[in-house]
């Protein structure tokens, strides 16, 4: 089920009302059933896979807690292999088979290549048919119907067994509550990737309805949907033509640069919008999820960017990959190597394609250069506003450049776009190309909608910010009038400018 669907508009209030009407001891069951329903709205049969990992990890957690020494370690390994095995099968089998087949062809073993491809297809199609996905003849066709949000809930499940192994978390005895930890619908398919220490205990606590908290949760939901449906989906109209058909004759350097910046904003609004709705949804019911974004495009360097972007994933890699590899306590060379591993794996986490690996590799380079420059002490910018502004612009430029590889359909497409960016054909031609690009959306001219929505957004955002930060200085009656008026204006604005398109999934669902 999508947050930006009519179904969710009915589903969510129903769950909230039932949640507070039911006695505390039954709430976990309601939330678990609601989460199953939410997940099964995509491909129902895949819940079997999720159920399997839940059962394995639940018992792994209990046994790890009781076990000692090597047995403890082996139990963790079994749990991790089962989680990563499912992830590897569904997400990476196709990619690795394809590349192994190419390699075999390159060393003149075409029969072996054909055999590998046929075997992978047979296994993959067999498994998908078992899950009711008929009509698929190869793994390449199947990529779009894989279990949704697989990487998210797999990582969340893994963090549980690792934390139990480390002794930071007691094993959960209640099977239903453990299942709910993995399946809690607000963050099931696209995070934030939670830690057991933050969430599990909340399902045991009795929640009472709190109007202030519920309103705050609704504000989070509003702004999340706003980012997604008003900004991200609108921008996709500008981004898609350029990235789906990179053609230097149609879209020159100016249009391609604009589309690249538009995608940087689109993906931020799309993904952070999802996280905001997830946080708000949980908040209305009384649960706290961790913050996933902290104004990442205001970061003054690439390392700061990664401490603000997809925080739950960055910290996951830090805690479960970087630190176990030695963290900062190893030699400089080894540290750089560890850093490279983290970013390359992070690229691969997003998708099984060379484009994601290239994106990870670019961020590896950006990070290593930043760290090396800082440690050498050769580049030291003063703590002045202009230096910070310069840092923000450069960081945004680098991040946007890397997004080209993330969004492009292939490395070839990405390189075409990069070449286009580097080919300036003169102002007249570039301007014509920019105009051609903007006209693709079919907006009426003059673009009052864009102007009006920009001004409206600024006013509403400012109004919301002022009311929330200055509420202590406003009198009760003023606040009672201002708040509903502002929220009503926000809803009206949303109705006028959001894109109500059933096909607009969240970008991060595919991961």
């Amino acid at each position: 089920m999508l947050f930006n669907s009519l179904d969710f508009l009915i589903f969510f209030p129903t769950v909230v009302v039932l949640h507070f009407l039911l006695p505390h001891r039954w709430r976990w069951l309601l939330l678990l059933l609601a989460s199953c329903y939410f997940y099964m709205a995509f491909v129902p049969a895949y819940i079997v896979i999720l159920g399997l990992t839940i059962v394995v990890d639940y018992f792994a957690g209990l046994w790890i807690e009781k076990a000692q020494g090597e047995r403890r370690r082996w139990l963790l390994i079994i749990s991790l292999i089962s989680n990563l095995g499912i992830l590897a099968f569904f997400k990476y089998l196709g990619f690795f088979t394809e590349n192994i087949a190419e390699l075999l062809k390159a060393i003149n073993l075409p029969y072996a290549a054909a055999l590998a491809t046929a075997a992978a297809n047979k296994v993959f199609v067999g498994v998908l048919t078992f899950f009711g996905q008929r009509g698929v003849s190869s793994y390449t066709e199947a990529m779009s119907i894989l279990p949704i949000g697989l990487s998210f809930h797999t990582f969340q499940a893994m963090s549980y067994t690792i934390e139990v192994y480390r002794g930071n978390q007691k094993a959960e005895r209640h099977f239903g509550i453990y299942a709910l930890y993995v399946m809690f619908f607000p963050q099931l398919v696209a995070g934030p990737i939670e830690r057991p220490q933050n969430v599990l205990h909340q399902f045991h606590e009795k929640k009472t309805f709190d109007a202030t908290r519920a309103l705050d949760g609704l504000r989070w939901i509003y702004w999340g949907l706003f980012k997604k449906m008003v900004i991200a989906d609108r921008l996709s109209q500008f981004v898609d033509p350029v990235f789906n058909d990179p053609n230097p004759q149609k879209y020159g350097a100016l249009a391609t640069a604009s589309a690249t910046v538009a995608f940087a904003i689109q993906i931020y609004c799309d993904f952070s919008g999802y996280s905001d709705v997830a946080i708000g949804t949980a908040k209305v019911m009384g649960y706290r999820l961790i913050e996933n974004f902290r104004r990442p495009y205001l970061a003054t360097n690439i390392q700061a960017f990664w401490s603000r972007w997809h925080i739950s994933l960055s910290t996951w890699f830090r805690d479960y990959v970087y630190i176990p590899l030695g963290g900062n306590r190893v030699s400089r060379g080894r540290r750089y190597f560890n850093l490279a591993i983290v970013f390359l794996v992070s690229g691969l986490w997003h998708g099984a394609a060379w484009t994601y690996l290239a994106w990870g590799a670019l961020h590896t380079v950006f990070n290593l250069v930043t760290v090396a420059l800082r440690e050498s002490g050769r580049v030291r910018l003063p703590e002045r506003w202009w230096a910070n502004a310069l840092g923000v612009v450069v960081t945004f430029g680098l991040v946007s450049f890397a997004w080209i590889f993330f969004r492009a359909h292939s490395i070839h497409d990405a390189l075409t776009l990069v070449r286009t960016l580097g080919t300036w054909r003169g102002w007249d031609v570039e301007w014509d190309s920019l105009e051609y690009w903007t006209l693709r959306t079919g907006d009426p001219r003059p673009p009052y909608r864009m102007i009006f929505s920009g001004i409206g957004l600024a006013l509403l955002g400012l109004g919301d910010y002022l009311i929330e930060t200055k509420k202590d200085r406003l009198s009760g009656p003023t606040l009672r009038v201002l708040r509903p008026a502002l929220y009503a204006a926000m809803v009206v604005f949303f109705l006028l400018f959001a894109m109500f398109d059933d096909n607009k999934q969240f970008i991060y669902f595919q991961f």
Partner: protein
Amino acid sequence: MATINPFFRKIVLFGLALLGLAWLTEKALDFGLAHNYDFKPSLVVAGHTRPDALFLGNSRVELMLNPAVFSQHTGLSAYNLGFNGSSLIQQLALLNLWLRHNPAPKYLFVEVSPENLQHSDLGFFSIHFLQDLHAPPFEDLVRRYDPRLLTLSRIPLLKYSLYNQVLVGDALVGLFRWLTGREQTLQYPGGYDPTPFVDFDETFDNYRQQHPGGIVMALDTGRVHKLGQLFRFARSKGIQVVAYEAPTLGQMLRLHRNRPAMEAVIDSVCRAEAVPFLPVDTTYLCPDRRYFFNANHLNAQGTDLFSKRLAERVRDRLIK
């Protein structure tokens, strides 16, 4: 319980504020849309134009008929009421809308190509009848083809929300024009908005690659019947109807294996309804990609040339 009561009070206050604001906004947008005369249905409803010749059709009229050029060579004033994707059902409804608010034009030009008689998606745009939504026959048509709009139009603002991609921008343009006293300044006089696309794109070559053996168009008898109905309705209102076929790239014409048979159907409908039919002149524009931006659509240069050519044929053969 103590926290629930203030919460519900807030919800009620918010609901009232929302309803009031939505109602006001809808009225403002209705006003704006009604005053944007580049939004063709608004111009039709306002009754601000009195052309001798009215052109009906889909994008092959909307983008491929320059009324100014046509007028220059025929002496007839003209208005282009073409809409991208418009089906014959839509065209009949638009003619109804026109006649509801305007006197009958002397001539009605209908672009008819074999493509119009194929099975395809419907092409009925309920938003064109928004200002007469509850008047017959529009209410019945909208109920049949877009019942969602009828339901949502009962709740303030939701009709704009449903089609905000088109309507909100157009309503804002109208509102700003009215506020600045420029409501009579039309960006697209005569209803013609020249396409910005100049160069021939790759869609036809891709299409041809996918259909190396050519294609057979499937005739929709319902559409044939609807074409006859459109002709009869116009003639019953005392309008002289002319059917014509706009240019298509020659290579595309050859790709259609049953095009002559489909054209014969058009010809027979026109004969049965006593409507003169001007078939496409395949030697003019059709062989040259320079005049097209895709196989079915002329660019602005091609449009001007075709509009002149059509005007000359009309002047020589039809205008007494």
